[in-house]
Structures are given as C-alpha cells and as structure tokens.
C-alpha cells in the first residue's frame, strides 16, 4: 500500500533567480529517498526546465506565482510544477523535440529533457489558465532511508 511519507509545497514569484533555488531545494527534499547522485542531477534538470518554462513561457515577462509541490511515498517522488500563466495551446506539439514558440531564443529541448529524465510526465494545461507538470521518479536501487 502506498502511503504519503512526506510533502513540501513551495511558492515563489516567477524570477529567474528562483530556478536554482527550486531545483536545489527539490533535490534536497528528494535525498530522503535513496536516489543516486546521477538521479538527483536528473531531478534537478527536470525541475529546472519546468520552472524555467513557467518563467519564460507561462508568465513571459510579467510576474506571477509558481508552485512546486513534492510528495514522497515509500518508493517514489512526485513533483508538480504549476503556473497560472498563458497555458499551452497544443501539448502534443510542445512535447516534440525542437518545437518552441521562441525560435530565436530557445531550443525546444526543455520538455524533452523532463520526459527523458523522469519516469513519468503528465501535462495539464489550458490556454489563458496556466500549466501544471506532474512528474514521477523512483530510485532505481533502494528503499527509503531509515
């Protein structure tokens, strides 16, 4: 049976300076499970991409709020990164490698990295309402620290 062992909710404004805070704080929280250093790096990248997208695409210049929620069960970490920004018109398209609505500036690799590095990715988005990325990752090797 799955039980929620721990949880943290973090809310902060969509400033680029908070991207580093968010990914490091999530990795810190994640280290309660026996992730390898490589896996913690992967989690950091996924969070970095998700929060960067909320800053750049979700709020695009304006300032809004980003919420990062981590839930820890005995064998997995669930991360949700949520903005209340512009939303994504076509989620399938957004997931395509090299697709970006900012071709001058961006590579269209962010969501590709998230999908590559996490075990699961679900995107819930509505134009004008915002975007929520739900991600899951489990340690490959072991159980919860005692």
């Amino acid at each position, binding site marked *: 049976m799955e039980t929620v062992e721990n949880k943290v909710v973090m809310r902060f404004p969509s400033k680029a300076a908070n991207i580093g805070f968010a990914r490091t704080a999530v990795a810190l929280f994640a280290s309660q499970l026996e992730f390898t250093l490589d896996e913690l790096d992967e989690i950091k990248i996924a969070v*970095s991409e998700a929060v960067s997208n909320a800053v750049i695409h979700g709020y695009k210049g304006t300032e809004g709020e980003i919420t990062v929620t981590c839930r820890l069960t005995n064998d997995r970490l669930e991360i949700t990164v949520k903005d209340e920004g512009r939303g994504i018109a076509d989620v399938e398209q957004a997931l395509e490698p090299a697709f970006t609505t900012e071709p001058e500036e961006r590579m269209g690799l962010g969501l590709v990295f998230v999908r590559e590095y996490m075990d699961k990715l679900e995107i819930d988005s509505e134009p004008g309402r915002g975007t929520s990325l739900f991600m899951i990752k489990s340690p490959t090797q072991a159980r919860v620290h005692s």
Partner: protein
Amino acid sequence: MDIEIRRKGRALIVSLGGELDLATAAEVKERVDAALAENSKVHHLIWDLENVDFIDSSGLGVLLGRYKQIQARAGKVVALKAVDPVRRVLRMAGMERIMQFADTEEQALAQIGGR
C-alpha cells in the same frame, strides 16, 4: 556566474564557474558576444567548463548560439574539462555533433588545429 575570457592565438577561451541556466545565460551571452565582436581575428571558441556544475537547456542555448557565430567564421568549438553531469547533458542534446570534447587546454588547442 564567474566568467573569464581570454584570447589565445585565434581561439577565445571562455572559463565559466557556477550554474549555467536561465538566470545566468544572458550575462554569458553578452560577455562572449562582445568579445567575439571585438576580436574579428578569433575563429575558434573553447568553453572551459571545469567549474560549471549544472547546465540545462537554457545553458545549452548559450553554447548553441555561440556555435552558430563560430560556424559563420569557419571555426571550431571545443568543450574543455566538462564534469560528468554536464558532459552527460551535452551528449544527450547531441552537442558532440557540433563541438569536440577535450580534457586539457593543449588538447583543445590541438583539436582546433593549433591555429
């Protein structure tokens, strides 16, 4: 982000320190682009990544953008001393198709043809 730029022959050597993400990308772009604009003799670009401990797709965007400028000068780009997690991200993004990897500055200079 620590940014140190020097010229060696026809190569620009850019040493970075810290985390290369959206928060630091703009400054690196500006500094390197200014150095490239000033030094029309520079053909090649060596990124010394020894002290970069994190990079994501915003950071890769910085490398890719500068690659395009170097390509226009018919030069080469080398990633020097990238640590494992950074090297992994570079490879995953297929950056080895557009840049070489080196472990020492001598090796990097040799790879761009010692010019």
